[in-house]
Structures are given as C-alpha cells and as structure tokens.
C-alpha cells in the first residue's frame, strides 16, 4: 500500500498484530483447472444465449412495454391511495420501514426513530441502515463523520 494512503487508515494495536498473510487455501491445481471449468460453462451458455448478437426480438420489446405500462398504472394507483404527505418527524417505525418517502428522510431522524422504536439492537439496526443506504448508492459520509 502506498505510504501516503497507509497513514490515513485507522489501524488499532490488536489489528496490527494479526498476520496479513492470506490464510485461505485452495485444493491442488485448482487455479489450473478453473479456467477450463468456466470455459465449459461458458460454452453451454453460448448455445443457450449467443454472446453479443445485439438483436432483441420483438417479444422482448413488447414485454418491456407491458411492464412499463403496469408500473405506470401501479404508480398512479399508489399515489391515489397514499393521500396527503406525512410529517417525517411523526412517522412510526412501521411507516419509516415501509415509507415511499424513505429517501427523503434525514438519516439522523431515521437513526433516532429506529433506536427509539425499533426491535433490534444497535449494531444490527446500524448495519441494516448502512446496507440499505449503500445499496441505494447513498452518500453516508455525513452520518459517519458525525460518528467519528
């Protein structure tokens, strides 16, 4: 690792004592046989699904159009059912979990709400929230900066 990067990473005393040598092993000749195994599967894939023919049959476009129409209708239906907007500060845990406004919520509010009403322990809740946010490409810098 370049020295300028190494200095910026946290590394505790205990972690420093752990060997960085890779402890995982593979069976003998595994990496000599793996390319052939994958090539064999790729050969089967080629029969089932030619690579890069670039042409999509009419049925593909028709199916995509049907899905788009259904999603549009579902969105309109949901917006009718939803009714007036809630004040995020008054949302219950269930509403937070299921809310279509999830992306609009403040992360600190969400953490407080989960801590106050959620069923799990702190670490699990935090992990769940972080995974959710990372899954949705959210920037959690602000949250972590607050934690450090």
């Amino acid at each position, binding site marked *: 690792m370049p020295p300028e990067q190494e200095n910026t990473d946290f590394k505790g005393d205990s972690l420093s004592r752990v060997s960085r040598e890779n402890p995982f092993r593979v069976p003998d000749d595994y990496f000599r046989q793996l390319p052939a195994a*994958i090539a064999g599967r790729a050969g089967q894939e080629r029969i089932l699904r030619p690579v890069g023919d670039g042409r999509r049959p009419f049925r593909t476009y028709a199916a995509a159009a049907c899905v788009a129409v259904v999603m549009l209708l579902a969105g309109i239906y949901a917006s009718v059912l939803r009714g007036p907007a809630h004040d995020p500060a008054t949302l219950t845990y269930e509403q937070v979990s299921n809310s279509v406004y999830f992306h609009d919520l403040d992360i600190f509010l969400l953490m407080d709400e989960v801590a106050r009403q959620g069923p799990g322990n702190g670490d699990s809740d935090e992990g769940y929230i972080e995974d959710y946010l990372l899954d949705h*490409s959210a920037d959690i810098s602000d949250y*972590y900066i607050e934690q450090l």
Partner: protein
Amino acid sequence: MDHNPSDRELLRLFTNESTRDKAFTDLVTRYQERVYFHIRRLVIDHDDANDVVQNTFIKAWQGLHRFRGDAQLYTWLYRIATNESLTFLKRKKAAAQVSYDESGMEPVAGLADDPLFTGDRLQRKLQEAIARLPHKQKVVFNLRYFDEMKYEEMSEVLETSVGALKASYHHAARKIEDYLLGH
C-alpha cells in the same frame, strides 16, 4: 497473438468470434485468483466460493460485449463478484432460515476444522470479527485491508463516494479492533 495482451486488447479479441474463447480464457486466467479470494473472504467456504467465482465469470461472459471500457476491467469484475457473493449469502441465509446477523458467526464457525484455512488463532479471530460486520462494510474492509485497493477504485466497484468508503472503513476497523480486544 501477444503473449500478454492488455485488457483493452483482450476486450477487442473478445468481440471477434474466432478469438473470443481464447480471449475469455486469458481473462479468467489473469483475474481468477484475485476474484476468487475476494469472494472467498466473503463466503468463507471453498465450495461456495467455487460456485460463486464460476457464476461471476459466466456473468462476465454474458456482459462483456456490453462492457464500455469507461471503468477498469478488474473493478468491473470485482463489482460482479461482490454482487454475486452478497446475493449468494442472502440466498444461503434464507435457505437455512437462520439469521447470521445476530451472531454474524455462522459462515466462519467451521474455520477451525477447515483444512483449507491455515490461519492462526488471531487470523481466525479476525475472520470472526469481519463476519460480524454488515455485508457492505465487510466488503469495504476486505477490499481495503486485504486487497489494498485504492478508495477511488473501490468507489468504482461499490458505486459509493470515496468519503463514504473512508468513513465506512474507519468504522469497520474500529469495530474489529473492539472485537479483537474483547476476545
């Protein structure tokens, strides 16, 4: 053909029907170890890692003709491998109908008896500590600590900002330190 073609050259050869198979085998040979061990550190068990690494390269085979080259090939492979690994873990957890999240220990429980794990006690404790992290934080820690990947490259793999990744790594390392101190 060049004995050691660049990634760009491999991609070009892949688009040609007559050189596709050779180009793909070269690509697998070049990246199999890095991709495999990235997966192995997430799923722990070799047989599981073998399944996931094969699925990863098959997904690459299916998508390589659409690869635009605006990212590095290996970060693209890491992204597929990460998604395949996390999907695998979720499916395995659902199939077993047990929660790893409460203890986080299930995948590493057998390490002590695993002949394909040669780590010492501290390395096993480190794996236990990593297993307790949320999945994405686990990926961040592994990519940084073991693969020594730059944050900018991790940002390509995980489609997350560099700032968030640095903070996530810091948080993971703190948790691991706490676990190691307490065990």
